[in-house]
């Protein structure tokens, strides 16, 4: 990028100091990445979510705009752009305007440290995982700001709820992530992935019973942090109308949704990185395309994406399966269940590491066997449910 900046400087902008050109190039790159990569990504996730929700509810979902409705999010986005930008009279105007950008900022800065492949990462920070959690903090401020700035009591309640929720759930998130950090001995995402392997028995998910539990804690805690159902209390539409985004319309409203779906992706990425081996691809497969080639990187990217999408699918399915919890129950769940179990897991992993520095393969295989059995049983139940319902089979996802 530096060469590019120098090139730009020499060819077009030689009147300006190099540092300014550098800055412009950096912002330009960020702009391109945001618009060209992250935004379509969030949009695509919204499409996926809508289609999954539709099929869960025996509907079809958006299928008119573009091939199979794939461009629906673009249509929605353009529509939002043309919508009247309403600012309520009683709203605190500056805060009302800034809030969506803060939420947006908080969510999208986290993309900086996501390891898409062994080399494709914007910044491999030494404190990557902490950075991910820290960016969530900016989102909280944005949500509270939106809640207050709207000048509506429902929004305010939503903002307060979201703040209480995200702050509380940062603790189990941190604790559960700590188990993987302990095992890897590093806060850098790339190093955590490198410490694992491509095969399931090398993942931290199956490393020992404590990480196994920690994975689920992290899953729940991250779902809660992203304000996703069943923890979508800040925007609980049946209680708070629409929570902190009640008064928003048009593009500002869209920003909140961008952030929500971007978080969905980040959630998958964090879980994949910490527990599911990230972008790791089996050696033999990697060798067949050449370990240093672009194809290998793409392969890694594909593996990483696949794992993320499985998790995203689960989160989406979770949203359309369960009811919303109540505020006090959510706090109960955090402080009475997730936090103690999280502490138990951290202590357990530490002791496990002391007792068995090299891990116990027997336990790993047992956990894998258990999980496989559960998955098989799950699919059996799905089959039974399907049979009982006497419905027609339709496997094509694009009807």
């Amino acid at each position, binding site marked *: 990028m530096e060469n590019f900046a120098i090139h730009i400087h020499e060819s077009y902008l030689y009147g300006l100091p190099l540092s300014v050109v550098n800055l412009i190039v950096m912002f330009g790159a960020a702009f391109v990445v945001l618009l060209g990569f992250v935004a379509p990504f969030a949009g695509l996730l919204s499409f996926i979510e809508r289609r999954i929700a539709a099929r869960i509810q025996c*509907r079809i979902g958006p299928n008119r705009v573009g091939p199979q409705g794939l461009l629906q999010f673009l249509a929605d986005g353009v529509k939002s752009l043309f919508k009247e930008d309403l600012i309520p009279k009683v709203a605190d105007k500056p805060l009302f305007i800034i809030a969506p950008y803060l939420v947006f900022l908080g969510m999208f800065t986290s993309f900086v440290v996501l390891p898409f492949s062994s080399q494709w990462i914007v910044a491999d920070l030494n404190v990557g995982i902490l950075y991910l959690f820290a960016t969530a903090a900016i989102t909280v401020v944005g949500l509270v700001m939106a809640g207050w700035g709207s000048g509506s009591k429902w929004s305010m309640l939503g903002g307060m709820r979201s703040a209480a929720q995200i702050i509380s759930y940062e603790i189990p998130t941190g604790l559960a992530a700590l188990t993987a950090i302990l095992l890897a001995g590093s806060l850098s995402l790339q190093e955590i992935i490198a410490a694992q392997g491509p095969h399931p028995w090398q993942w931290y998910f199956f490393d020992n019973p404590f990480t196994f539990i920690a994975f689920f804690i992290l899953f729940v805690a991250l779902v809660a942090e992203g304000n996703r*159902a069943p923890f979508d209390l800040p925007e609980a*539409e*049946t209680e708070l109308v629409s929570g902190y985004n009640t008064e928003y319309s048009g593009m500002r409203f869209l920003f909140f949704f961008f952030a929500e779906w971007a978080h969905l992706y980040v959630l998958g990425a964090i879980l994949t990185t910490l527990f599911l081996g990230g972008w790791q691809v089996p050696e033999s497969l990697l060798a067949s395309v050449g370990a240093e080639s672009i194809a290998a990187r793409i392969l890694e990217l594909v593996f990483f994406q696949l794992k993320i999408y499985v998790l995203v699918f689960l989160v989406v399915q979770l949203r359309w399966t*369960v009811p*919303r*919890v*109540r505020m006090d129950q959510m706090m109960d769940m955090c402080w009475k269940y997730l936090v103690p179990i999280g502490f138990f897991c951290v202590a357990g992993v530490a002791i496990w590491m002391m007792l068995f520095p090299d891990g116990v393969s027997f336990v790993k295989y047992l956990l894998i066997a258990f999980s496989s059995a559960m998955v098989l049983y799950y699919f059996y139940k799905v089959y039974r449910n399907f049979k009982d319902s006497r419905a027609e089979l339709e496997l094509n996802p694009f009807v």
Partner: protein
Amino acid sequence: MGIQTEEMMLNMGPQHPSTHGVIRFVVKSDGEVMTEAVPDVGYLHRSIEKIGEICEYNGFMPYTDRADYLSAMNANQGYAMVVEKLLGLEIPERAEYLRVIAAELNRIISHILSLGAVAMDIGAATPFVLALKEREKVNDLMEALCGQRLTYSYVRIGGVSYDMPPGFIERSLKFLADFEPFMDEFENLVPENKIFIERTAGVGVITREDAIAYNLVGPNLRASGVDWDLRRDMTYSVYPKLQFEVPVGVGSQGVVGDSFDRFIVRIKEIKQSISLLKQCFAQIPEGDFLGEIPRVMKPAVGECYVRTESSRGDMGYYLISDGSKNAFRVRIRTGSFTSMSIIEKISRGMMLADLVTFIASLDVVAPEIDR
């Protein structure tokens, strides 16, 4: 403590996603916990009762649909019964069966929508859509039967407007056969869910005494442990010929009379309705569907009150005749209206989210409150 907190006055409704139409609640809350919620009704008042005085007797039938649009058949039936009583009409047995079939089908879809709405208000969107999916199937049946999907106005004074279309019994039985597994699945998906249990069990408990004192009716009353069903205890139409049980709240997950009980009682009532329908289809005799009716309906001077068990409970029609073609007075007594009265008492000290659950579990329908 020295910290003074100020009560926040929240205006919940008339446009709020969970007030099911246009009801307004004036909520005083201290953060998440409410100190009181006062219902404010009347936003959907359309003077239906007054319209009844300017319509002819038959002409008021479509308006009863609008009184309770979610169980229009039951509302139709009640009105037809009160006019028939005034006129002293005997109606053919086949018509009675047809009315009961329609009413029970309507009870199923009214309840299933209510169940879906409770789940929706608690935050699960899928059960609501699945419930609507089943509701649509019944709507198809209803459309085949009487030509309309929501405001049926199927029942006529002296009988019903149409006989069953050909193949209706087979279609209905096929629907019921598919519907039973759906109900099992629905039970598995919603009331057995831990979060759902936590959200509804012990929430909005209406004790037996309160339920009677505040004149709750129908499923809400039965959920509080009062074994009272007009179809059995003040029987009408062909119900004495049919076998059915009256489900009562038992407090399986919390206390008797909580929101969970109201949910479960509705599920059980749906199952009873299925069995009722099957019996009706087996027993229905041949014959006329519309009896001999006078060309001009002029009942003798007098008054009459008829109670029927609608989806939302005791629905009463009070009619005064002055001997002319129009009724002198029409009054409708509905279950939703009495349900509203108890909200203020029960909601004290409740959480905001629980108020939503509570209102949904009472299954109030705004037009039925206001008429």
